[in-house]
C-alpha cells in the first residue's frame, strides 16, 4: 500500500510504501507461516523539498555547504 499526500501543488505526492512480504520471499530467511514480516518505508527527500522550499531534488545529493550553514534548526 502506498502512502500518498496532497501537496502544496494540489497533486498527489507519494510519501512511502508499505506491505506484507510474500511468504516465498521470507521463506529462504527461515521465516515461515504463520510468522509474517510487515514492512514500511518512507522517502525523506520529497518531504524535505517541501519543508526547505527546494525545487530540485538533486540539491540534497551535492552537499552544498553554503546552504547547509545557512539553515536554521528552528525553521
Amino acid at each position: 500500500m502506498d502512502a500518498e499526500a496532497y501537496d502544496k501543488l494540489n497533486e498527489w505526492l507519494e510519501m512511502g510504501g508499505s506491505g506484507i512480504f510474500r511468504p516465498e520471499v521470507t521463506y529462504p530467511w527461515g521465516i515461515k507461516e504463520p510468522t509474517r514480516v510487515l514492512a514500511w518505508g518512507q522517502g525523506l527527500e520529497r518531504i524535505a523539498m517541501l519543508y526547505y522550499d527546494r525545487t530540485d531534488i538533486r540539491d540534497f545529493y551535492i552537499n552544498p555547504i553554503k546552504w547547509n550553514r545557512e539553515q536554521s534548526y528552528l525553521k
Partner: protein
Amino acid sequence: MPTIELKIERLERLVGKKLDLKELEYDLQWIGLDLENTNVEEQKVKVEYNPNRPDFSSPEGIARALKGYYELELGIPSYEVRPGEITLNVDPSVKKVRPYIVCGVIRDIDLDEDEVATLMNIQEHLHWAVGRDRRKVAIGVHDLDKIIPPYRYTAVKPDSVSFIPLHGDGYPMNLEEILLLHDKGIEYAHILEGKDVYPIIFDNNDEVLSFPPIINGVLTTVSDDTENLFLDLTGTDFKAVNLALNILSTTLLDMGAKIESVKVSYQGGKEIITPNLNPKKWEVKAGYINDVIGLKLSLTEMIKCFQKIRMDAKKSKKNGYLDIWVPAYRGDIMHPVDFTEECAIGYGYFNLPLTIREGGVGAYHPIQDFSSKIRKIMIGAGYLEILNFILTSSEKQYDLMKQNYDKTNIVEIANPISKEYNTTRKKLLPQLMDTLLLNRSEEKPIRIFEVGDVILLDPDEETGTKREVHLSATSYHDEADFTEIRSTLDFIMISLGYENDFEIKPNKNLSYIDGRYGEIYLKGSKVGEIGEIHPEVLLNFKLEFPVAAFELNLQDFL
C-alpha cells in the same frame, strides 16, 4: 511503470455511470491504480498501473474493475468464445527457435478512433510488460479476409523465404535482408541471434502473414475497411502468450467484437483451442485470508469481496474453504496469499480498521547506535556532516588519490550507466575530497565528516563482498595540518574512553605526505589512517589549501 490516459467521458460510457472527477481520483486508487495527474479542463486522468496487472492497459480493463467496485456488476464478466473453423498447424521445427503460438479470430469489428488507439496502445504495453520487449511474446494483428486457411507456423532457413514486409520499401526481402536492412529487423534482430532457422507464418497459398517477432507482411495490413481480424501470438513462454491473447481478446469483446476460436495443432503433439477464456479454479482457506488481513469476515462476506474484484467465489465442499475462480485475463495470481490482497481490495482498504499493535519493540543495531554517537562527537568537534553515495568512480576512488589498483581486485559494476558510478567505495575519504572540490570557494575553514558504508571484497561471504561502517573527516584551510587533525582524533578517542588504548605508527601512503602520515592502532590492531594529503592529490581535486584527514573503521570499535 506503465501509465495510461483515461478520458472521463469514455470511461463513463464503459462503466455505465456518471463519474465525478474528484471521487474518481480516490476510486481509481482504491482499485490499485496510482494517480499521476488529473486534467480538469480536458476531463482526463492519467494513471499508473503495476506491471503485474497488464489487464489494466486499456480503459476497458479498468472499467471492468470499476464496475465491480461500484457494484454495478459482480463476479467474472461473461465472455463468449464461438467455436471457429480455422486451423493453424505448428511444425515441430519451431521448437528450436520460438516454440509457442496461440491465435484468435475477431469478427465484425467496428472500432472508433479511440478504440483503434487503445488497440495499438495495448499491444505496445503487452509487448513490454508481458512480452519482455517481444522476446517472450510478440503480437501480430492481421486482416483475416486477405488470407486462406489453414495457416502454418514453421521455421525456415533465413534466405529461403522472401515477402514484402510492412513499413518497408515495397519490395520483397528475404528474412536475412529484413534483419539487416528493415528498421524493425535491425531493432529486434538480437532476439533471433545465433538461430539457424527463423519462425514464419504462411497461409494455405504459402503467402507470408508474419515473420515473428519482427514484422508482418503487407498482405494482411489492417485498414479502415477491415472487418475481421486474425491474431497470432508467438513466444517462448506458453503461459505468457496465452495471457496476452486473453487480455487482447477480452478487451476486443468489451469493444463489442465477436471472438472465434482457432484450432492450433502442434504436429506430433497436442491440439489446443484458443483463446481459452475459462476461469481458473483455486481452493483457498478462508481462515488464512482473515488471518493475513486481520479481519473476521464470514464466508458470505468474503464471497462478496471477491465478486467486487471480478472473481467468482462460493463455499467449497471442504469446510472453511472457498472455491475461487480467477478470470483468464489475470496473470498475477500465483499463490494463495494473492487472494488475501484481492479480498482486502474488495473489502476496501479504507474500511480496514485502525489498530495499535502491541509488542514488537525494535532497537538500533549496535553499529547504528555507535555511529550515532560518533556523529554527535564529530558535530561537537565543529565538523559538518555530509552524505555521499556508495557508488562512485574508480577514477576518484583510486587514480586521483594516487592509489594503484588492480581491476581484478575491486568491485566493478557490470553495466554502469555512467563512468561516474562504475565501482563501490572502499574508502570515504576520496568523496570527501570531491565534496571539498565542489565547495572550495566557500568560507574556510571547511571541516566535514561522513559516517557511512564501504564495500570490501571478501571471498568468505556469500556475495563475495562485505560491508563496513567507516568514519572519515577532513579539515581544509590555509593552516590545516597533522597537529590539528590529530587533536580531533584525540578528542574522539577521549570521548569514547579509549585515550590510553590507541597509538599512531608512522608509515607511508601515496595519498599522504611522507613523514606526515600514520596508521591508527586500537589495542594493537589497525583501525585507520591519518595525515596530511599529498600536494599532487590536492591538485587532482583542484584544491589550493592543505587538507588534513583521517579515516577510521568503526566496526573495529564494537
